[in-house]
């Protein structure tokens, strides 16, 4: 393939985002944790703590169950790869990234599903009660969250007449600020999906040590060292990706066009600001709510689906 003059900036922009997401994702997790610590009157471990944890985990020797198959070993790499890809193709610093064309929103949901499928299979692979328990709870939550997410993305697609992320984002960002009622519903639905998919309170609790209550953590109880590091990193990337989708769909203002070098610093700064703000919001929401009983999750996620469908209907009724 010949890289012509037009494509070079696009590749540079893409590489920037590629590195930015993978390096900054733990920082986002650290920031959310730090905000939570502040909200709980704790001093907290600092925003760099996830990096320290990753460093520690990469230095350790991995312990793997005797009866673990290849599935258990490759899953961390698959999950990490999927999340990195997902976070890379979402236009966050610039609109027309080359990788963005690789997958539309439906494929993006598929990438998340692929990672989840591997995670669940690996959890069941070693045959512990907790792995299986976590896997089946995770599938229960995600099979309810996934349609809601698709509906949210369809609402956005309807408004921009495309399922391609770059088109959706550029359609929204080029408009002057405009209130779409359908998007407001979609945003609420998306928020619920974000909490459920990222194993946050009130659906799951990422900080719990109570193995019987765990969802996501129960699936990865058997992982250690580099495998655990990759999965933790992938979780950070997933949170980053979800925040990115949220920002791309609902707050795309300030995003750079490919090739506009001068817009790039401002675009990155704005992105960091939006992410920081979203992190505070997440921490605040988590601080204020208790975890719901597991069989309330279907109602909670049903609400998300309902809101997303309402968004879609409103679009058809009001064409807005």
């Amino acid at each position, binding site marked *: 393939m010949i890289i012509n003059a037009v494509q070079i900036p696009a590749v540079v922009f893409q590489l920037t985002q590629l590195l930015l997401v993978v390096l900054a994702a733990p920082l986002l997790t650290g920031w959310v944790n730090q905000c*939570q610590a502040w*909200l*709980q*009157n*704790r001093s907290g471990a600092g925003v760099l703590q996830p990096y320290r944890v990753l460093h520690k985990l990469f230095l350790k020797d991995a312990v793997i169950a005797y009866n673990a198959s290849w599935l258990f070993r490759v899953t961390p790499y698959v999950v990490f790869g999927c999340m990195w890809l997902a976070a890379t193709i979402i236009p966050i610093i610039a609109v027309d990234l080359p990788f963005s064309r690789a997958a539309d929103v439906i494929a993006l949901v598929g990438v998340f599903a692929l990672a989840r499928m591997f995670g669940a299979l690996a959890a069941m692979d070693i045959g512990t*009660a*907790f792995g299986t*328990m976590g896997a089946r709870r995770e599938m229960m939550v995600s099979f309810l969250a996934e349609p809601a997410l698709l509906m949210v993305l369809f609402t956005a697609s309807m408004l921009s007449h495309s399922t391609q992320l770059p088109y959706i984002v550029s359609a929204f960002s080029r408009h002057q600020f405009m209130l779409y009622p359908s998007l407001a519903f979609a945003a609420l639905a998306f928020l619920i999906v974000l909490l459920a998919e990222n194993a946050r*309170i*009130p659906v799951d*609790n990422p*900080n*719990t*040590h*109570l*193995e*019987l*209550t*765990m969802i996501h*953590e129960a699936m990865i*109880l058997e992982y250690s060292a580099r495998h655990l590091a990759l999965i933790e990193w992938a979780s950070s990337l997933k949170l980053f990706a979800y925040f990115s989708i949220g920002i791309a769909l609902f707050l795309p203002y300030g995003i750079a066009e490919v090739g506009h070098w001068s817009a790039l610093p401002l675009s990155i700064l704005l992105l960091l600001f939006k992410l920081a703000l979203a992190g505070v919001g997440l921490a605040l929401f*988590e*601080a*204020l*709510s*208790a*975890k*719901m*009983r*597991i*069989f*309330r999750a279907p109602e909670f996620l049903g609400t998300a689906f309902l809101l997303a469908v309402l968004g879609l209907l409103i679009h058809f009724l009001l064409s807005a």
Partner: protein
Amino acid sequence: MPIIHPGLQLTPLHGAAPAWQGFIGQDDLQPICRSVCDSGGRLVALWGSDERASGPGFVLHLVLLNETGLICLHLPLSAVQPAYPDVSEIFPAAGRMQRAAYDLLGIAHNGTDQRQWLRHAAWRSGSFPLCKDFDAVQSRTDELDNYPFVQVAGHGVHEIAVGPVHAGIIEPGHFRFSVVGEKVLRLEERFGYTHKGIEKRFESMSLGQGAKLAGRVSGDSTVAYAWAYAMATESIAGTTPPDRALWLRALFLERERIANHLGDLGFLGNDVAFSFGLTQFWILKEQVLRNNAALFEHRYLMDTICPGGVSVDLAESGKQILLEECAMLEREAHLLRNIYEEHASIQDRYMGTGYVAPKLAAQLGLCGLAGRASSQVWDARVQFACAPYDQLDVRIAVHHNGDVAARVIVRFDELFESLRLQRKIVSKLMPSDILMLPLEKLPGNGFGLGLVEGWRGEVMVAIHTDAQGNLARVHPHDPSWQNWPVLEHAIMNNVVPDFPLINKSFNLSYSGHDL
């Protein structure tokens, strides 16, 4: 006289708790238990002792309780193949105590459950550590621990085995859940992982050393155990500690209750992922512990109570600190109580979860805080009010709902009551220089009981002395013995993820139970 039974001679025991003792025969055991049970009484403890050196053989001891007092029954057993009739049909709580008594002493019961309880293949089957002729080296074994759990069969039923190694840093216990989906059909507990031979260790200890060990049976109840131990020694010696010492003991006990209730209320928030509650309550608990360290030289008040009195005094300047602490805790805890009670998603998790019906609680002998949350109106500070509680007029905290929410409410009520008591004790504390009437030596062949309402429930310590007045057998009894089996019922028909919350709402001891 607490009970009348033909041929039963009860003699009163000296001491702070109203207690009687008497010797019975094999045939009297079940009828007496039945009549105590029928009159609303329950079983407090059951243990055995090896008295082959001084008497005919082994002796089984039971402490029963009804509203008039404690009844301690001694049942002599033969030296060869000692056995006694099962009482777990009458008092279900006796089941595990009987199994533990067999593991430690070889005294057999004819109950339906003959599985081992405390023995985890750490010593050979057929050798019994509490026998005086036990040889630890000879009893070593390589045999594997084989414990048949009860199986639940049916379509879609599977087991979840949890522990004894947990994902968090907590004490070890094994929980075997039989579930369908998320619903728990049956829970079976297995303990004994923290068995450290405390009762055996007591046998070679002096009175003072024993007091220290008693304070370490369960770290969160150190005051209750130390007081119960001291009460038992004073019961044998026939002495009464100085007035100020008794008031200070009550102060320590209430402070222990305050600290533990604060900690538990925090954990009960954390277990529903409301970490804000945890950090706020733990700030308060930490303040109490720091004041303990500053005023009484130990954060958890270990070794403050000793046989004959107390070892630390409250300085005049300390009174002001305690009163200020009371005011601060009352203010903050009221705020936090409002937050807990008005938080819909917390209450949604608490209400109806882990329900123990009052009838079931009475049947199974649920005691202490968990009992009071299920209508069991019983508090040793009220019914058997010893000095200084007889002058403090303790208000009992009772709730009828029997769920997690009720246990939270009882904790809050007891917290505020303990703060009121602390204030009252500080204001009524009479100046005196005498804190202790030292007890050096106990009379020979004595028996004494101590019963103290710890924060978890009634803590009992029984002491037997040999002919020289040394400790021959010390049996500390934790309320967890009664309450652990009830937890198995509380979880039934709840979902698996609610178990940690229900477990925390009871917050039972492993160390105090396994000894």
